[in-house]
């Protein structure tokens, strides 16, 4: 399984000379499964470049949306495969009691916000609510779970062979909770990230910034590190950078995160900040049992 980061920014695109290293596109991650098929996790502005990198041939693509905030769907109408009649796209996302996934996405892909309507997309597009149980896409087993954020929001876990990838880009598990004290099964997102080969997790705010953003649905650095430690993820990448954070600021935050991880007893090489276009190849490893709570 290969993971490529096409958009690492949260909230709003932040292009410019001060964000070249970590990137300015909003959330999108491409996952290439062991059979060569590609999944897109979220459809922020980063999905535009993912679409341009995909071959122009008949294909079936799956897009897994964590939630429908604009920074996670804004790139949908600029995703080139959506304009190819030979492409089938399945969009997965959270259910809501208010309206179907299609209807909620159509609020964005419709006038006056969009020049095209969902029904006008040339591709064969369908919308599915994520099931409660695990399901399969190609060789991968997918699991979603509701996580602590504003509005219906999912995190995902993808298992392919012996590798596992957990994606929880918008997450505030420490809201009203002490992550160092809670039992495992009372931590939002815990089951998704448990012993994952790679964890991409919300790290939007520094610890100094967080007190002014409590309840906004995002994590401080220390919360992300505590979550990573509790779940036992092998490698953690802090994601969903605040649009105000420059490369210089993020480089400093990354050093601080490594230092703190080391003080927590971890390998500093196992913690890093997400950089746009970074790629991770998850190794095939010997299977090991996962404890059930």
């Amino acid at each position, binding site marked *: 399984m290969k993971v490529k980061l096409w958009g690492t920014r949260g909230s709003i695109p932040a292009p410019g000379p001060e964000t070249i290293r970590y990137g300015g596109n909003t959330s999108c991650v491409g996952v290439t499964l062991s059979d060569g098929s590609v999944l897109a996790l979220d459809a922020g502005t980063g999905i535009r470049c993912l679409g341009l990198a995909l071959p122009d041939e008949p294909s079936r693509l799956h897009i897994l949306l964590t939630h429908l905030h604009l920074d996670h769907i804004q790139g949908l109408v600029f995703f080139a495969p959506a304009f190819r009649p030979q492409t089938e796209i399945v969009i997965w996302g959270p259910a809501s009691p208010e309206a179907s996934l299609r209807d909620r996405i159509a609020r964005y892909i419709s006038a006056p916000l969009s020049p095209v309507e969902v029904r006008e997309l040339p591709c064969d597009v369908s919308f599915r609510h994520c099931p409660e149980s695990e399901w399969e896409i190609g060789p991968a087993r997918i699991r979603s779970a509701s996580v602590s954020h504003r509005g219906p929001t999912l995190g995902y876990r993808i298992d392919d062979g012996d590798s596992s990838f957990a994606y929880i880009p918008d997450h505030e598990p420490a809201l*009203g909770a002490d992550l160092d004290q809670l039992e495992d099964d009372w931590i939002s997102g815990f089951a998704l990230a*448990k012993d994952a080969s790679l964890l991409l997790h919300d790290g939007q705010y520094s610890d100094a910034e967080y007190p002014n953003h409590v309840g906004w649905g995002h994590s401080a650095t220390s919360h992300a590190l505590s979550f990573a430690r509790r779940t036992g993820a092998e490698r953690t990448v802090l994601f969903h950078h605040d649009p105000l954070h420059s490369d210089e600021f993020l480089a400093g935050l990354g050093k601080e995160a490594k230092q703190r991880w080391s003080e927590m007893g971890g390998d500093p090489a196992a913690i890093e900040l997400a950089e746009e276009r970074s790629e991770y190849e998850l190794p095939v490893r010997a299977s090991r049992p996962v404890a059930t709570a």
Partner: protein
Amino acid sequence: MSFVTQRPLELILARNLMSALSTPAFLVDEGGLLVFYNEAAGLLLGKRFEELGTVGPQEWGSLFGPFDESGEPIPYDDLPIVKAVRAGRPAHAEMTVRSTDGSSHDVEVSAFPILTAHGSQGAIAVFWPSLAGANGNGAGPA
């Protein structure tokens, strides 16, 4: 591979909220298992949740009562929190609960279900000091 099991997010958020309240409150899961009560409820009952842990419906009934106005134990099926879980509707009742030190407290209990896109996930019961209670030592903010 088997996945680690986890509480529904709605229960997690309910527990987090209850932890910050000074009003005594209980949380049960969809099966009626008492999965959490907050510090204020611990003060009322004389035992912290961490000391008790998760307990089944029959056990917590025998630990704390509750009793009706004539001192008779209230059947499990008639408790507001049980009604809320089973019927998916709010329920309210007056009752007396017993603390581990032997004292009793007259309370009013409001219970409401936790309904989600995936159905009922449990219920919350909040204890209010009884205005009409004979004991005059109802549940109050801790």
